[in-house]
């Protein structure tokens, strides 16, 4: 049974695998994708030692070990940073331009997410894909249900995570408009924002959302248990 479940995940992964696209048998001449094999020194035949690592700094500059000036590394440019600076914070910092509606979100969700999380966001446990809805008011129960709706303290985390890590088989593939739309759909279905088809999320409206469990988190009070000598 377990193997079957793996197979399902595998099938979905394969459905979008680039390996399938380039299946023509002919290998392209590619660059070596592993370390160069050991070289030998002349005369003794010893194995050549590693090459000393090289600083990427353009010039050596001033070296002052006591004040951490090593002439190593280089300044990062705005461009280099923004290419990978994808995080979004609770106050909305990091949210990109763009917007998306509940209605567009439904279309995108059904296409990109429903296969794993279920058409009603109920989750598919044999795929390990959690439910995204439900569970409000259950956190103090014997069997609490922790979902985006019931547990997540910030809407920013939903944007951040969906954009960063979902859909599982092609993470990072959604445009800002799509992530806004899918967020509007999930949060609308959760009753956290309106589920009117025209409900629109963008950077401003996203940052204003108050999640049901926003005040549910406390600081770590440990050590709370355990004798003290």
């Amino acid at each position: 049974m377990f193997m079957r479940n793996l197979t399902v995940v595998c099938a979905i992964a394969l459905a979008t695998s680039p390996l399938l696209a380039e299946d023509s048998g002919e290998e392209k001449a590619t660059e070596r994708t592993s370390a160069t094999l050991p070289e030998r020194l002349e005369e003794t035949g010893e194995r050549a030692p590693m090459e000393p690592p090289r600083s990427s700094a353009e010039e050596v500059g001033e070296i002052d070990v006591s004040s951490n000036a090593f002439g190593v590394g280089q300044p990062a440019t705005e461009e280099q940073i923004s290419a990978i600076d994808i995080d979004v914070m609770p106050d909305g910092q990091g949210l990109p331009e763009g917007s998306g509606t509940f209605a567009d979100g439904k279309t995108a969700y059904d296409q990109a997410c429903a296969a794993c999380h279920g058409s009603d966001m109920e989750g598919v446990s044999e795929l390990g894909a959690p439910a995204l809805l439900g569970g409000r008011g259950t956190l103090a129960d014997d069997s609490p249900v922790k979902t985006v709706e019931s547990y997540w303290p910030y809407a920013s985390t939903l944007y951040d995570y969906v954009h960063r890590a979902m859909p599982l088989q092609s993470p990072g593939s959604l445009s800002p408009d799509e992530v806004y739309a899918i967020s509007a759909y999930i949060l609308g279905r959760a009753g956290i924002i309106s589920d009117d088809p025209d409900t629109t999320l963008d950077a401003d409206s996203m940052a204003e959302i108050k999640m049901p469990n926003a005040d549910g988190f406390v600081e770590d009070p440990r050590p709370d248990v355990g004798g003290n000598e």
Partner: protein
Amino acid sequence: MPNDEKFPASRYGPAERHMAESLVEIERQMLADPQQEDCDCKEGMFNGLTRRGLLAGGLALGGGALMSGRAAAEAPPGAVEYYVQPDPTKEQGRLILQDDGYGSRSQFESEVRWRYPTASIESSWSMTPLASGHGIITPSGLHFERHHAGIPTIDPRTHELILHGMVDTPMRFTMDDLKRLPAVSKIHFIECSGNGLTEWDEPTLKTVQGTHGLTSTSEWTGVRLSTLLEMAGVSDGAAWILAEGADAAVMTRSVPIDKAMDDAILAYAQNGEAIRPEQGYPLRLLLPGYEGNTHIKWLRRLEVSDKPFMTREETSKYTDLMPDGSARQFSLEMEAKSVITFPSGAMKLPRPGFYEVTGVAWSGRGKITKVEVSADGGKTWEEASLEGPVLPICHTRFRLPWKWTGEQAVLQSRATDDTGYVQPALSELVDVRGLNSVYHLNAIQSWHISEDGEVTNVHA
């Protein structure tokens, strides 16, 4: 179960369904005939599926079982099957460098990590076989793993780390840059805060690998994070730093800047060689004593901020739900814990006699100062000897000679660290935290020994 139920049309389009069914069929055939050559004649057997696709499928399945080929079936993983001489004193041994210069373990050893059967294979974990471990170091190939999106293969020649946010000069480092900076080597454990999550309610897994195998110790070498932060110049008001990995989860956690400045290491080596891919090659953040998830692997970015980032792994996950419905957040330090690894669950003591009880103890807050062992379920305790070196935030080996008389016994160990904290009983933890907090179970473990020597996991 007929196939059409397995892949319902509500969830699978026709193409996906065809693919899934094909894979089920392939898996069935491979399992039925594991010896069959993976020959070209198989190609084209299923529309749109090539041999490369198959291999990818097999790998994604984590599937030693699915990979055909005889060699794999003969020697245990990590070993090579060599000819065993009837009398090794009467003939020459195998020639030097027959291993091409990188050794492997004996073909008579077969310890392996065990994957906890999570439903998702991409987001899963494997556990260290503690029962057969010796000393305090975990072999790199047996260090536990926790991945949320598989193991990326990263070329260190192109990998870069960017440090930005609330700093005077945002910086960019190649792996070569990092290796040019002053380095440190430290021996530390890493423990996943989910270690033992199956054990809150009732004894569930049978072996110490299952109950405690999400902790491992290595020597880690790299650059102090404080060195980089001082190079970049941290701005006033900075309080947190985001660490981000280059895997498909683009894993992120927020870390207090004080920790980053104190003892955090950007590690590129583990146990004397380059860090293993599954441990974050080429670069991993090491936060001594913090829960494993924060030790971001495949590290690509660090961003300094005045606030925590509230990522999914510090809100939805790795938070501890309390009985009143509130949840503890940023429970970062791993509290003192110990476990007896021998004798331990699912073993059978052959007969009464002398046994050396041994195990490991560790604390995320400092050094282990004492480990006590009980053979009567906690009524009486005897101090075990701690084997040096006793290092801070590191597995510490303890040993105690013991005579098993053949009567029932319940073996327990209890660790104390240099903050004076004493490892609690499970009931004490449950009284305060209830049964739904999932993470941070550091209770005393009990192993019951029956009259016929069977060792079982019990709550006592």
